Structure formats: structure tokens, C-alpha cells
């Protein structure tokens, strides 16, 4: 039973018998607990319940979409969506075929945050906040904790009926140090799927963040310019997501002939050492699930193999229109939005170098670590490091003020000339696209080296 207001029978009946090429319903029920600290004080604590649904219809290539909070009379909502789609549609509907699925996926939870009392959650974060504030020079802190349990019910006119549940546990710790007019911040964002347990293990992280914020006050600015850059797994993962991952989302490509030329399968993007993968079927990560929001089973998709573009991310429509297999990447942040092509777990696979190999022959370069933010416009990307060090004569040297890296995707991927074998995942991010943010994703990489990267002050 998805909910006492909407039975499985109601939902399955409501998608049947419409004069449309395709119809689907999604019902979401999400309960969230959230804590926010700023400085000494807990600034916000709250619980939210978000229940709603949507109907989406495809007629003659046009889409209609209706979302609602009041789940009465779902069939009428579906009819509205069908009427909208009919108003738009003037072509032929194309959806890549997917076998209908009936599945109720059990929640596979390691440590359930709903079993931890609010008092205990607050006690844990009171502890981290006190640790950070006790470091000499730290003037303020910012902590965000959130856990959310989400149950999604999906049914389509093709006969699919799927129930899935997930629990996201996210946290961010940040410390600000201030001296005279100068202010520096250090932070870390973490996340886990279906597991609260990491939340209780962050003492060292809190100490490190607080001390780093103070150290940054004495750090010099980078001399802006072009350097060889070594990225740690977290930042390289963000680079992989921002610089390449978004370009592999086919909704940017499928109706754009020029983009099709650029993103033609078989095109060389990098050296032989470069392999990039996306897949929700990689288990246990923030971007993992069994079915996407069109009911397509999750997969693991090779995007770049030995430097060559070999695949891309699809919804059923983009796959159908490009004549490629659906990849299970149609995702919606919640019932208020239709699914669009999104990443899941995106990562650069291990190479064969060591970290020392990567920095050993760099006379003057930058070692950039940790994620702060990133964004892309397809061709150009920019992402910022949580911390950075100069590399001098093959050794990691002085700490720098935070840096920002920017570049052109096509040249930058080719300039990756070293990949280590220490793959690690960043689970603290949330991806934004088309007004839908933050969508749970993970990204990962081993340490990588990029030649000729533009580095500026953040």
C-alpha cells in the first residue's frame, strides 16, 4: 500500500484506458528531519512531510505533466495530462522499449536514522560544533544535517508497477576563521545512502576542518596562471561530473545536430588511460537505485573507454530518438517535476600510477583537494577546490588560499596524462539541473594529473 489515500488498485486503474501513446503516475511520500547550526547556536530544527503525485502523458511526441498534493481523483489528473500532451503533440512519439516490471523493492538499510532519537542526533552535532569552536582562531561554524526517507510508487500504461524506498543521510561541517578583516572557511560535505552510521565518526574531520580554516589565514594566494594540476579523488570526481558527465546527458544532444557531431560515438576525448563510467547499478552509493523514474532498470554505462566516447546517458525518449539502448538515467527530484536525463554514480576508473608518480616530475604545479563547488556550460567548466597546495620540485609544498580551476572540456580531458589507482567516492554532493536540485548523486575518481590547467583565486 503506497498510502491510505491512494491504493495500488487506484493507481494501476488510473493509468489504463487513455487515448495516449504513454501514461505514467508517480506518487512520492518523503519525511525529512533537518538540523542547522550557525556559531554557538542551533539555528534551526524541523521536520517536513512532503506527499504528492504527478501524472505524465505522451501523445504524438508532445508531453503533458500535472502535479498535485491532493491525491483525490487521480484519473482526472491523468486526463488533464493527456489533454495537454495532445495539445502539444504534432509528431510521432518515440520511446525506447523497456520491459514492464512489477516489483516492490525492500528497503535495504544498514543503520536507520529514524531509529535514532532527535536528542541523540543533537548530542552528536553539539559535540562536533563544540570541537570546532574550541580551536583557537575559529570564530564561527556552520553545520547542516539532514535525513530523509522517501517512498516512490510508479505505474505506467505499459503495465509497470514499482515501489521503491530510500534514505539519504547528508551532513556538512564548516568552520570560519577570522583575523582583522580577513576571513577564511574550510568545509566538508558527506553523504550516505540508507546508513546513518558515518554520522557518529566525524571527530577527526571536525578537528581537521577547524584547524584548516585557521591555517588558511596565513596561506598565500596562488599566482594566477597555467599549471600542471594534480586533483585528489574528491575533486577529480567533481571534475568528471561537471566537465564531462553533463555533456554525456543526451537531452542536450538528441535534437541538436551540432552536438551530435561533437558527441559522436567513437570520438577521441582522452588518452588511452582514461575510462569513465556512470551507473545506478553500482550498489550502495548516493546515486544508486534499482529503477529510474521511468521504470527502466538501473545499469552501468561505459561513457569513455580507453579515451574513446562509447556511450551516453538516456531517458527512454532520448534513447529511442537516437536509436541507442535506454540507460536508466531518467530521474526527477520529486513529484513536482517530470524526469529528465541525470547522472547517478559517475567516476573515472583506476589507472596504474601512484600519487608519487603523478607529482614526482612536476617542477611547479598545484595540488588541489576537496570539493567546494562546480558548474559547467558544456564546453567550459569551472570548479573550486576546498584546499590547495603548491607542488615544488616534485613535492607537495605550501598551503594556498582556495583556488578555482577552469577550462575547456575538450582540451582538458586530453590533458589528463596520469591516473593513480586509488579510486574513492564523493557522496556529499547534490546535482542541479533544470530547476531540480539537489538530486542525490555520487562521483569518484583516483588521483589524476592534468597538464596546462587555468588556476585562479577562488
Amino acid at each position: 500500500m503506497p498510502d491510505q489515500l491512494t491504493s495500488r488498485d487506484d493507481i494501476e486503474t488510473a493509468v489504463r484506458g487513455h487515448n495516449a501513446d504513454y501514461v505514467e503516475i508517480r506518487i512520492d511520500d518523503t519525511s525529512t528531519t533537518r538540523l542547522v547550526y550557525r556559531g554557538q547556536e542551533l539555528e534551526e530544527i524541523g521536520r517536513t512531510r512532503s506527499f504528492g503525485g504527478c501524472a505524465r502523458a505522451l501523445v504524438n511526441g508532445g508531453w503533458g505533466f500535472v502535479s498535485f498534493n491532493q491525491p483525490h481523483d487521480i484519473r482526472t489528473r491523468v486526463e488533464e495530462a493527456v489533454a495537454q500532451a495532445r495539445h502539444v503533440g504534432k509528431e510521432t512519439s518515440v520511446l525506447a522499449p523497456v520491459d514492464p516490471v512489477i516489483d516492490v523493492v525492500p528497503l535495504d538499510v544498514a543503520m536507520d536514522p529514524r531509529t535514532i532519537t532527535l536528542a541523540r542526533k543533537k548530542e552528536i552535532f553539539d559535540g562536533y560544533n563544540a570541537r570546532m569552536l574550541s580551536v583557537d582562531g575559529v570564530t564561527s561554524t556552520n553545520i547542516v544535517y539532514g535525513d530523509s526517507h522517501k517512498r516512490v510508487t510508479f505505474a505506467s500504461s505499459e503495465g509497470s508497477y514499482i515501489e521503491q524506498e530510500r534514505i539519504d543521510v547528508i551532513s556538512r561541517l564548516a568552520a570560519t576563521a577570522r583575523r582583522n578583516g580577513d576571513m577564511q572557511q574550510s568545509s566538508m560535505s558527506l553523504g550516505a545512502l540508507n546508513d546513518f552510521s558515518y554520522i557518529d565518526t566525524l571527530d577527526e574531520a571536525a578537528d581537521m576542518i577547524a584547524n584548516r580554516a585557521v591555517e588558511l589565514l596565513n596561506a598565500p594566494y596562488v599566482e594566477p596562471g597555467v599549471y600542471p594540476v594534480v586533483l585528489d579523488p574528491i575533486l577529480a570526481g567533481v571534475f568528471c561530473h561537471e566537465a564531462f558527465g553533463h555533456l554525456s546527458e543526451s537531452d542536450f544532444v538528441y535534437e541538436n545536430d551540432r552536438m551530435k557531431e561533437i558527441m559522436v560515438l567513437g570520438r577521441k576525448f582522452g588518452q588511452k588511460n582514461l575510462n569513465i563510467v556512470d551507473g545506478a547499478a553500482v550498489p550502495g552509493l548516493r546515486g544508486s537505485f534499482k529503477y529510474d523514474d521511468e521504470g527502466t532498470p538501473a545499469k552501468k554505462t561505459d561513457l569513455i573507454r580507453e579515451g574513446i566516447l562509447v556511450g551516453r546517458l538516456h531517458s527512454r525518449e532520448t534513447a529511442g530518438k537516437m536509436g541507442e539502448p535506454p540507460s536508466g538515467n531518467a530521474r526527477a527530484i520529486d513529484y513536482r517535476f517530470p524526469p529528465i536525463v541525470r547522472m547517478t554514480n559517475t567516476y573515472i576508473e583506476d589507472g596504474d600510477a601512484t600519487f608519487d608518480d603523478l607529482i614526482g616530475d612536476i617542477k611547479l604545479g598545484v595540488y588541489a583537494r576537496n570539493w567546494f563547488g562546480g558548474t559547467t556550460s558544456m564546453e567550459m567548466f569551472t570548479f573550486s577546490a576546498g584546499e590547495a597546495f603548491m607542488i615544488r620540485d616534485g613535492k607537495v609544498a605550501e598551503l594556498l588560499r582556495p583556488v578555482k580551476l577552469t577550462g575547456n572540456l575538450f582540451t582538458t580531458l586530453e590533458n589528463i596524462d596520469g591516473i593513480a589507482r586509488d579510486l574513492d567516492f564523493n557522496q556529499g554532493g547534490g546535482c542541479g539541473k533544470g530547476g531540480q536540485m539537489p538530486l542525490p548523486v555520487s562521483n569518484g575518481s583516483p588521483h589524476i594529473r592534468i597538464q596546462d590547467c587555468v588556476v585562479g583565486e577562488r
Partner: protein
Amino acid sequence: MTNLNAVLDAARKAGAQQAEAYQVANEETPVMFEANRLKELNSRHTSGVALRVIADGRIGFASSTRPDDVDDLVSAAMETAPFGPEAHFDFPKQVEAPVVETFDPATEAFAVDDMIEAGQTLIDAVRKVEPELLCDAQLRRVVGEVTLVNSNGANVSYRGSMLMAWLHGSLIRGTDMLFVGDVDASVSPDIDTARIERTVTWQLEHARDLANMRTAEMPVIFTSSGVADALVMPLTLAFSGRLVQQGQSPLAGKLGDDLYDARLSVHDDATLPMRPASRPFDDEGVASRRTPLIVSGTVRSFMYDLQSAGLAKAQTTGSAERSLTSQPSISTTSLIIAPGETTFEEMVASVKEGLIVEDLMGAGQGNVMGGDFSGNVLLGYKIENGEIVGRVKDTMVAGNVHEALASVSAIGDEARWINGTIHTPPLLFDRMAVSAKAS
């Protein structure tokens, strides 16, 4: 709809000394164009109730989109209250709010077919300038109602409407990608699609040729759109009364100081008629007003909501904003930067070698709280000897907004609305760090 007084009664029965119920009901109708043609119609209904309680001096919060959920809503809010922050305010009594025009029945009545036509006309017009431009566009109609009641007697409500249009075009040649675009929004159906057409046409004409930039300190012009992208967020964050009170804002202790260029004036105004960010009262039921932030270079006032005002022993400026699922926090409404006396053409003509920033990507990633901004120039142009010579690529610009605004080289004489919420002229700065990778 939920009976909000019943929610307040239930909260008091459960032990809350004060309670506030906030209800939103929105209907959002986007008409979406993809690859130059109509692709999708949406209709999104959102409604729900948020409850704040003050119990034993502490604030609890819960929200729900389930209209039948009163008991769960009250128990969730009461469960959080013992762990919540100490309340430094009482919910306000019923206030005399100014009359602010926020709703136009013509927007509510604006037909989907008219939205479709407006979008297609716009796309066709810019493609006459550049036939190979691939356009995504959206016309969006939003009609909604906000209601707020509290246990101290406030019971306020208003309706709002908005029509928004945006167009985003891409032009790809080889691996060179050009992105152009503009957006306008209004309470009425009078959005200026002709302006979007003019802006995009200007962008296309000046972006045709590529120009090489070098790494150097040089004059930089931010167009209205560039100001909104790069400067507004780091600037207004510093005026958050909460961050000032906590000593996190670089403006802490600097009220009344002449920190900025004497020609610079900036204010926030929630009372402007027919602007999408306008409202008669804020999201805590406090009357709206005009709040001067910078007057002729002087730091004049900070922005407060109830809690931050209570902590700072100041008055709320009616700056509380919230969504259904979030608690109120300090936010700007319509932000107005006063125009100056220099035309855009004069600014360009005065620069020997410099950069124009129209669209900056990743601007909010740095030490924003300290006023730093930096980003990749997504759309920008090079000036040589007083003339725009082409579009730049692989170029970053960085600076600190408080340092930059201390001495502005020229302020444009014409302000324009960006995203319907920021009204600003272009600004010219003498020296700013530009880094480029020569191609």
C-alpha cells in the same frame, strides 16, 4: 485547504505558548519549448502548511503537504521544540500593511495558447538574426496565495501572480559553443519579450568573432546581467542582520561608515507595484517596506527577520522569506542599484584594453561571505581601443565586491531588471584580476 485556526488551537493544546501557521497554494503553468519548438505543457499544483511553535521559549518547526495531517503536523513541531533555538521574539500582532499590488487577474486569465504563441514568436524572431541558433524557451504563469495566522492575532493573506519568459539559445561551431539568453518577469502579462529579442540580438552580433584575452589586471565592465550574476549575492549577504550580529559579515560594526563609492546607492524594496518579489507583508506577517542598504556610499541599514532582530536588539525590516519546507530566513526582495550618469557606449569608449562580463559562471563558489567573487566568463567580450572586438573564451575574473565598490570607475545611466528581481545599471571598474589561457 486546512483550517489554520484549528492548527493553532491544536498547537496550544499540545503545550505551545505561541504558534504560527503559514499556508501556500500555488498553481504553476510552464509552457516549454525545446530545440525551437513546443515540447511540453505542465501544470503544477502545490499546497501545504508550515507550523512554527514557541514552547518553553524554544522554536519548533514542521511542515506538511497533507491537508488531513493536523495531528502529525502539531506533534512533529512539538517534538522538535525542546531541541530548537531559543526564541528572541514574539509572533507579531495584526499589522497595518501597505497596499502593494501583487496580483493581476489578467495574468491568471492569460491563456496557455497565448503563452505558446508568445514563445514561438520570440524564438522565430531571434532565429531571423541567426538561423542556426537552437533555442530552448519557457513561458511560465504562476498564480498563488499566501496566508499567515498566528496566536497573537495576526491573520493576513494576499494573492500573487507572475508571468515569466526566458529564452536560451546555443550556437555550436566545431567545439566552440556560444550561449545567449535573457529573461523577464512581471506580475502582469506585460513582460517585455521585445527586450529579450533585443538583448539576444545584441549578444549574437557582438559574439560572432572570437578575441584573445591575456592574463592581467585591467578595466572590467559588468553589464546589468553581469552585476546580477557576480556582485549582488556577495554584496547583499554582507547586509544580512544575522551574519552581522554573529560577526560573520565583513560589515559588522560598520553601520554608518562610508565604505563605498559616494555615487553608489542600493536599496531593497518589497513595496514596488507589480514586481514579482513585492508583497504587503513578509513571510512572518511583518509589514513590507523600502530598506536603504547603501546611501551615497554609506552603510545605512542591515536586513532583519524577527529572530535576527531580536538577537541584535534591532527592528525587523520585513525581510523574512521562506518556502513551504524551510523556516524563515533573511532575503532581499527587489534589489535596486541606483543608476549613474555614464552611458554604456561611453564606458566602452573609455577603455583601451578590457573585458565586458555579461554572464559569469560559478560566481557563488568562493568566500562569498567575505565578499569574494570569481568565475568563468560564460558570455563576455573584449574591448580594444574603445571598441568591442569579439567574444572571449577560457577567461576568469575575480575580485572582492566590497573592495571593488569602494571605487567604481563609472555607473551606467540605464538600469534594467534582471530575472525580474534585480534592477541595476552596468558598472565599470578600473582594475580587476583577469586570467586567461591564450588559445
